[in-house]
């Protein structure tokens, strides 16, 4: 169990919990979206932390691929959420 592995795994867990709390407590859509993204970054950090095998060995490439997929999925969802929010605001001004 490497020091770096455990440090970043715990950071990831912390971000996951922070993001979750923020998503539940924030009132504005923008705030919630930011919180969800932070939550996602936390899960990703957990994956990358367990992939790390120290300075001597190449890291485990599988979690890296998974996180790359996750980053793209996250941005797609963010874009859709923002578009929906914008449509909602436009309807309020009509």
């Amino acid at each position: 169990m490497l020091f770096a592995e455990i440090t970043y795994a715990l950071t990831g867990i912390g971000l996951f919990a922070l993001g979750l709390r923020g998503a539940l407590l924030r009132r504005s859509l923008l705030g919630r979206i930011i919180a969800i993204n932070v939550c996602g970054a936390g899960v990703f950090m957990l994956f990358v932390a367990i992939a790390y095998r120290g300075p001597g060995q190449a890291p485990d490439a599988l979690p890296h691929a998974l996180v790359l997929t996750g980053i793209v999925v996250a941005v797609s969802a963010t874009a859709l959420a923002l578009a929906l929010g914008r449509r909602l605001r436009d309807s309020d001004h009509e």
Partner: protein
Amino acid sequence: MNSLPVWPIMLPLGAALLAVIWPRRSAWIGIAAGLATLTAVGLLMAQVASRGTLVHALGGWEPGLGIALRADALAVALLLMSSLVALAAGWYATGYFRDADRQSQFWPIWLLMLAALHAMLLSADLFNIYVTLELLGLSAVALAALGGGRAAIEAALRYLTVGLLGSLAFLAGVAVIYARYGTLDMLTLAGLIEPEPASWLALALMTAGLLVKSALFPLHFWLPPAHANAPAPVSAALSALVVKAAVYLMMRLWLDLFAPALDPASAWLLGLLGAAAVLWGSWNALRAQRLKLLAAYSTVAQLGYLFIFFPLLAALPAGPARDTAFGALVLMALTHAFAKSALFLAAGMIQQQAGHDRIEELGGTARALPVTTFTLALAGVALIGLPPSGTFLAKWQLLSSAFALGQWLWVPVVAAGSLMAAGYMFRVLGFAFGPGDGAMQKLVDGREELPALLLAIVATAVLGLGAAALWAFVAPGALLMGAQR
């Protein structure tokens, strides 16, 4: 290498691409794809029935390094349900969207949703399931937002944000599994999972995510507005298929993959939440003023019944009793899918003709739309659980298992739920058969009522009378992956 499991996914996906490139032909592409997919599913079903579970290792790589598709009896039964309901709802949609642009926006996303659903049912890799969950969620949200009104957009947005949190919780669980067991392939994991904190945490996280997506009480709050405000064919798919996918995953995890790590008592939590869902959902359906809202609350209630099966299945030892109970669960899920989609399509028909779906002003519907009213009645039979519908047999089985195991709590809940279902369905029918003109316009095309009617007939008659065949097909697979040990 038998590549049959690939087609139910690739056919809708490829058709989605075509529908993007040729928007004016999108309806034709959609229906053709629906028929092709149904054919592929039928062939797959025939193969699984004769040769047993089919596995396809994508890319030719060993599962673990690569991803495997797995078609067993449960997956194939749900695939058939999905293809049939999607075809009927799609057929209805060709007449529902009067605006050509809306039609061309609808079809690509609809086909992507179908591909996602089939991909999830056939997937045997945990991370792949996460991706299919996201695809399903995003396409469902995009479809729900096609409703257009402020209520629809707001509901779609809530569905999206809540769904994203659920997916992330699921992904966190996947991370824990990979950290502990070093693989994501469900077939391999089936032999590895042990009762220890890592398994429990992973299951808890994944369950939390899936409970949000299957709208189990108290995480159901996003469902009624989303399903009630979406366009009718979309509501049908959302209630009948999309939420079922999450329940299917719960079944795979609790009754199959993680079963060796679980204490039967832990499933009681699911059962209790299910019971609360039945009561709360049915009560709100009774009080609903709008037909589509009633249908949405009814979905919350009916999903509750599915979760009540969990403590029963967890407590039963492997054997014919468990197989029968499992078959009942599948039967109930299938019947609900057909009945609820029929109800939503019928409600959509009424809404288009009358301009509204307020229950108390439905007078005269029976005269103006006799076929649709008949559909409502049939769907009602299947939702309440009257013979010969599949729901009747499933609830009967549920009650006998409860009696046999001494889990008495479920009996009054099921009884109360069924009574309330009778209450809200008869209320609707009462108004529909009542006097009034309901400001009905002349019916444009009688054929538009047909898909809903066919769905309702399947729910009420076909599934009930054909239940034995379904039982024989699904039940031997009740141990699914656990049999690999």
